[in-house]
């Protein structure tokens, strides 16, 4: 699984991208898994109302299913335009 982090999510976690193969099948369980990795992840995901996500470059929700080759991105609500 390819994980991407943007904006302050990237800053809190301390990296913009990483590969892992966690034993999870949806976004919610991926977040639970990440929060256990370390305090930087726990801090980034402390308030899920401030987190948005995309799976394979489409906006997705916490219930989106995940497979081993998916690209999953976490980021704050967007502020472009």
């Amino acid at each position: 699984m390819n994980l991407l982090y943007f904006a302050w999510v990237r800053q809190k976690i301390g990296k913009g991208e990483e590969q892992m193969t966690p034993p999870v099948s949806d976004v919610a369980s991926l977040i639970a898994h990440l929060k256990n990795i370390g305090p930087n992840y726990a801090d980034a995901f402390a308030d899920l109302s401030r987190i948005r996500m995309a799976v394979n470059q489409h906006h997705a929700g916490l219930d989106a299913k995940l497979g081993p080759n998916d690209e999953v991105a976490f980021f704050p609500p967007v502020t472009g335009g």
Partner: protein
Amino acid sequence: MQTRIRIQREDFDLNAEVTALAGNGEAGAVASFTGHVRKEGDLTTLTLEHYPHMTEAEITRLVAEAGTRWPLIGVTVIHRVGSLKPGDRIVLVAVASQHRHSAFQACEFLMDYLKTHAPFWKEEARSDGQHWVEHRNSDDDAAKRWQK
């Protein structure tokens, strides 16, 4: 529908973009929007980060959706990334149609959805440091107006 989507660090030439979009008499109406970095207190720099590939993919989807709602001849979307200063242009959305109302509607629709769906993030540099800009609920409300 002719679609041009560009994510770039450089500024753009609005005159050239609209001329290209209007073509040689194909379109009678071009509605354009440019967003500019506002001069606000001690703001010195606005830095734009984005999610490469998804940005283009998401904007492509938004333009396709606009094309199903209005009879469009062409759409150009240019969004800048990197470091910008007050007064710099951030974004261009230009829409060509045979009819001005369609051009206006599609242009505003695209701006409203760009603000709520395209993966860009703004970080401000002020005298007290760097701050990520907060998403505005008013942008969500603007986008909701278009829900069918």
